[in-house]
């Protein structure tokens, strides 16, 4: 799959909110003094009366969003991923997840590709936290095209959502005809020797790895697993059955994210060798996004290495 251009998922989020706001007067948006970074500022400009800046008080923001949602609104609440989940975990649990309120937490600046701001701004455990909340749907779009669709699906689907976006512009890897289906993995490349299951910015790297591997005679399937919860069990089992080796790739800790979830399915339904391209049990340092992705092993080269090692373990 060819990279066409770089595009910002945050910007697409902001613009999609504006479009949704025009279509549905019940859409309201909240932010915690980061609207210029999360891009909810577009909505704020267009619909000032339906936008609530809660200041640097994320827990209160989630509670207000819950109150609005309980009273018939569809509330989009945004801040950086690390604050949205870690700081607000109990608020998400009590005020959103349990009562199943229509709060859509769209968290930007996910992962370590935030870069120079350092560990306080690197969300490396947000997917584990979000997935641990009963009733939450968790989605990590791979590019701007998917982001626009995910935001629309979140608005149209009842219940709590966690959507993780990044800070970086990311390559457009999905075609204009791409159709995001909640809970379904998209097969971006067919293959028989191994399957790479990726989400977010690692999808582009998975495709790159698959391309390089094919030149070395290893034919990889690539799945874009944008919905982390509920997981597409069928696609995973099929991949295990047909390719007999699975490598997951995510910009998250090795524990509790996509890799853990996929492994849980694999061991229960069709046990095959697996490997995990993810951040090990460490906090990352400050650095440029590319330096960090390199340092913590989130590269196409790491995926290639993992695939080769896993293929060797096939029975």
């Amino acid at each position, binding site marked *: 799959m060819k990279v066409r251009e770089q595009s910002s998922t945050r910007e697409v989020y902001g613009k999609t909110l504006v479009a949704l706001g025009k279509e549905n007067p019940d859409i309201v948006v909240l932010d915690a003094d980061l609207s210029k970074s999360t891009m909810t500022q577009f909505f704020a400009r267009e619909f000032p009366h339906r936008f*609530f800046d809660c200041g640097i008080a994320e827990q209160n923001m989630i509670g207000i969003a819950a109150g609005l949602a309980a009273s018939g609104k569809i509330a989009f609440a945004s801040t950086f991923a690390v604050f949205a989940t870690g700081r607000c975990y109990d608020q998400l649990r009590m005020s959103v997840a349990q009562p199943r309120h229509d709060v859509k937490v769209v968290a930007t600046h996910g992962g370590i590709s935030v870069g120079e701001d350092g560990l306080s701004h690197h969300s490396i455990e947000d997917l584990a936290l979000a997935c641990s909340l009963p009733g939450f749907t968790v989605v990590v779009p791979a590019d701007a095209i998917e982001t626009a669709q995910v935001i629309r699906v979140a608005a149209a689907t009842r219940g709590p959502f966690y959507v993780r976006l990044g800070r970086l512009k990311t390559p457009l890897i999905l075609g204009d005809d791409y159709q995001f289906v909640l809970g379904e993995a998209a097969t971006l490349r067919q293959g028989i020797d191994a399957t790479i299951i990726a989400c977010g910015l690692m999808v582009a790297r998975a495709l790159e790895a698959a391309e390089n591997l094919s030149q070395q005679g290893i034919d990889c399937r690539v799945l874009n697993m944008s919905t982390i919860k509920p997981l597409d069990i069928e696609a995973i089992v099929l991949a295990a059955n047909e390719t007999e080796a699975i490598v997951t790739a995510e910009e998250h800790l090795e524990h509790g994210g996509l890799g853990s979830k996929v492994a849980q399915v694999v061991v229960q339904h069709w046990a095959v060798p697996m490997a995990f391209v993810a951040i090990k049990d460490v906090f990352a340092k400050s650095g440029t996004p590319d330096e960090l992705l390199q340092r913590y092993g989130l590269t196409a080269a790491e995926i290639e290495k993992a695939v080769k090692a896993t293929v060797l373990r096939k029975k």
Partner: protein
Amino acid sequence: MGKDQTTNQDLEAVAKTLRRHIITMTAAAGSGHPGGSLSSVEIVTALFFRVLRHRPSEPHWADRDRFILSKAHAAPLLYAALAETGYMPVGELCTLRKLDSRLQGHPDKTCTPGVEMTCGSLGQGLSFGIGAALAARLNSQTYRVYVLLGDGECDEGQVWEAAMAAAHFKMDNLVAIIDHNELQIDGWNRQVMNLEPLPDKWRAFGWYVIEVNGHDLAQILAAFAQAEKVKGQPTAIIAHTIKGKGVSFMENNVDFHGKAPTPEEAERALKELA
């Protein structure tokens, strides 16, 4: 008993009935929080039997006033009020905290008709109340939002985040009632975490503050009436109360914060509340 016909004597009788339910329920459950339930009885009585516009037969009526029990350990009191106003049979109260009961240890919105919000982790109710009040403004609805907080609960930072936001958003359809019984689990507020000057704090955050004797129904009703006239800012009613009010051996006795009366204690309490 239609709420317009209730006299303050009628309300006092209701308050006594709710107190009896609190004792009976917690004794039957063998656990629960009688102390903070008893201290809020008059506040909840005034709300459910006089102030709130609500339809117990239609709990989700869109224009209902919202009551949010942020001090969620007072669940027995809320359940007693819900039963006495017709949201559920009074007989159901004895199922409190039992497996498969609709009456969870702390209020659960998904279980109990009339419960607006799942609470129990303290400090979250006021934020939710702001959201409900903002929705009323957006929808041009006239319902009002009442949030009952404990004073100990005001230790939570989120309460003050919400206090700041409610004043910022000029939520004059929002009333916070702080049950100021001065006791929290580890002891007196002033020993555990000093809150004073509590009314000044709310004032400084931009709220219109009314102080009342939280066991004087006339004062409480007057405060709610006054709050309806306040424009451009939220109202905080600081209700001075006594933890365990109405049962001599529970009054100001922090042991009964989270401990149910034994059958013998319940019998003594019910005699006092006869």
